[in-house]
C-alpha cells in the first residue's frame, strides 16, 4: 500500500478519473472497430413518436424547475457549513451548538414559508 498523505490521495483521485475514462474509452474504441457505420438522413432525425419533429428541438420547460434549483442551492451551501460543525460541536464552546440550531431553525422556517406560499406545489 502506498504511503499515507494528501499528495498521494489527490494523485489517486486524479488517476481514478483517468482509469475510468481510459477503460470506457477502450470499450468505445472497440465498439468503433466492431460496429457498423451506415449513416442516413432518416437515422439523423431525433425521435418524436415516429412523426417528423417540429423544428424547435430544445423544447420549452416549466419555470417551476428553477424554483427548486434555487431552494436546493440554499441547502447545499448550508451543507458546507454543517459538515465542519458536525465534527467539532462537542469539543468547542457550547454557543457553537446553539448557533447551529438557530441556523437550522432559520432554514426550516424558510422551507415552511415556501411550503405555505405554495412554492412546493407541483402545478
Amino acid at each position, binding site marked *: 500500500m502506498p504511503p499515507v498523505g494528501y499528495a498521494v490521495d*489527490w494523485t489517486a*483521485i486524479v488517476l*481514478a478519473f483517468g*482509469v475510468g475514462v481510459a477503460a470506457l474509452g477502450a470499450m468505445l474504441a472497440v465498439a468503433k472497430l466492431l*460496429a457498423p457505420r451506415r449513416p442516413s438522413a432518416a437515422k439523423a432525425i431525433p425521435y418524436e413518436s415516429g412523426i417528423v419533429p417540429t423544428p424547435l*428541438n*430544445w423544447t420549452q*420547460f416549466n419555470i417551476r424547475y428553477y424554483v427548486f434549483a434555487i431552494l436546493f442551492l440554499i441547502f*447545499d451551501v448550508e451543507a458546507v457549513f454543517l459538515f465542519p460543525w458536525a465534527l467539532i460541536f462537542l469539543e468547542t464552546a457550547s454557543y457553537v451548538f446553539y448557533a447551529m440550531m438557530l441556523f437550522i431553525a432559520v432554514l426550516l422556517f424558510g422551507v415552511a414559508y415556501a411550503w405555505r406560499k405554495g412554492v412546493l*406545489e407541483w402545478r
Partner: protein
Amino acid sequence: MRARAGEAVVFGMIVAGLLGILGGLVLSVGALGTPERVTLEVLAQLATVLIVLFTLLAIVVLTLVWLERKQLARMQSRVGPTRVGPFGLLQPVADALKLIMKEDVAPGTSSKLLFFVAPLLVFVPGFVVWLTIPFARDVVVRSLDMGLFFFIAISVLSIVGLVLAGWSSGSKYAVLGGIRAAAQLISYEIPIIMTVLTVAMLADSMSFVVVVEAQRTVPYIVLQPLGFVVFFLAGLAEVGRTPFDVYSAESEIVGGPFVEYSGAHWAIFFLAEYVNTFVIGAVAALLFLGGWSWPFGDLPAAAGVALFLGKTYLVVMAIFWVRATYPRLRIDQLMSLGWKVLIPLSFAVVVATAVQLFYDWPRWTLPAMSLAVLAVPVVMQLRGGRRRALAEARRYAERAVVVEAKPRPQRPQEPLEPQEAGA
C-alpha cells in the same frame, strides 16, 4: 448559436472542475509541503490497484444485471434468463457484446461532442467513489479523511452527466428528461447529505474506516433507524430506480435523457445505473449496517470482505425488490415526497442526533426519538390516505349517473338455414 453557447458553458464548467482537482493536487504537493513524495513507483502501484478495482467492479456490475433479471423473474413467477451459460449467468455478457456491435447513432440535431461525453460523466463518478470505499479495515485503495464528503461530492457529478445527455441530444423527450433528472436528483441530494452528516456526527469522523469501527457493538441502523429509512429512500431516488424513475420513465418520456442513445454509449448508461446502485448499497452497508464488522468480535479480513459484500448485496436486492413491488410515482408526488417528507425528516434526524450527543442523553433515547419521528409521517399518511379515499369515493357516488337498463325489443328469431354448397 444556442447550442454553441451551451457547449461553451458546459466546457467551462468541466474545465473549472478539472482545474479545481488539479489545484488541490498542486497545493497538496507543493504549498502544503507534505513529507511524502509521489514517486513513479507509487503511481504504478496506484494505477495497478485502480485497474484491478475497475475490472472487479465491471464483473460485479454484470452479475448485478443477471441478479436483477433473475430476482424480478422469480418475483413474477418466471424463470428469467437460462440459455446463455450456466443459469443464464453469461446473459449480461452477451447483451454487452451485442450492444458494442450495434451502430452508434447520434441525431443530426445533437451537439456531438457533449452527446458522446455525457455517458462518461455518468459512469466515471460511480467508479471514482470506489477509491475510498473500504471492503475491510485494510482492504481499501485510499482511506480518505473526508471519505463521506468525497462520496457526496463525487456522486453528485453524475447529475451533470444526465442533464448534459438530455440537453445535447437535441430531442424534445431528452430535454424534458434531463430537466426532470436535475429537479429530482438535486431534491433528493439534500436528505442524503443530511443522513450522511448524522453518521459523521455519531462517529465523530468523516472517514469510512472510522465510521465502521465505531459500529463494532451497535450498528447505526439500530441507533438511528429513521436515518437509514431516509437514506434508503433518497438513495433509491438518487439512482433512479423504479418507484422514482420519473426522469427516464419509458411510458411517459420514452427513456428521458437516453432516448437518442444507442450501441456502446447506451451500454455505458445502462452499466452506470448498476454501478450507482451498487455504490448506494455499499454506502448504506458501511454507514448503517456496520460494513465488515460484526457484533460478536473480530473477523479475519477475508471474512470481513465477505460480510461487507453480503450486506451490500442485501441492500441491493432490497432495491430490486422495491422495483418489483411498487409502481412509478407521478412527478408531483415525487417532488412532494422529497420536499415535504424526506427533507423535514432528515433535518429531524440531524437535530435529534445533535441534541442527544450534546446533552449526553442515554443512548437509547436516540432510537426512541428516531422511531417517534418516523411514526409521525406514517400515521399521517395512513390517516390522510383513508380520508382522501373516502372523500373520493363520496365524490364519485355523488357524480354517479344511474342508467336504467331498458328492456330490449325482442327480435324475431330467424330460423337458421343451412347454406347451400356451391351457391
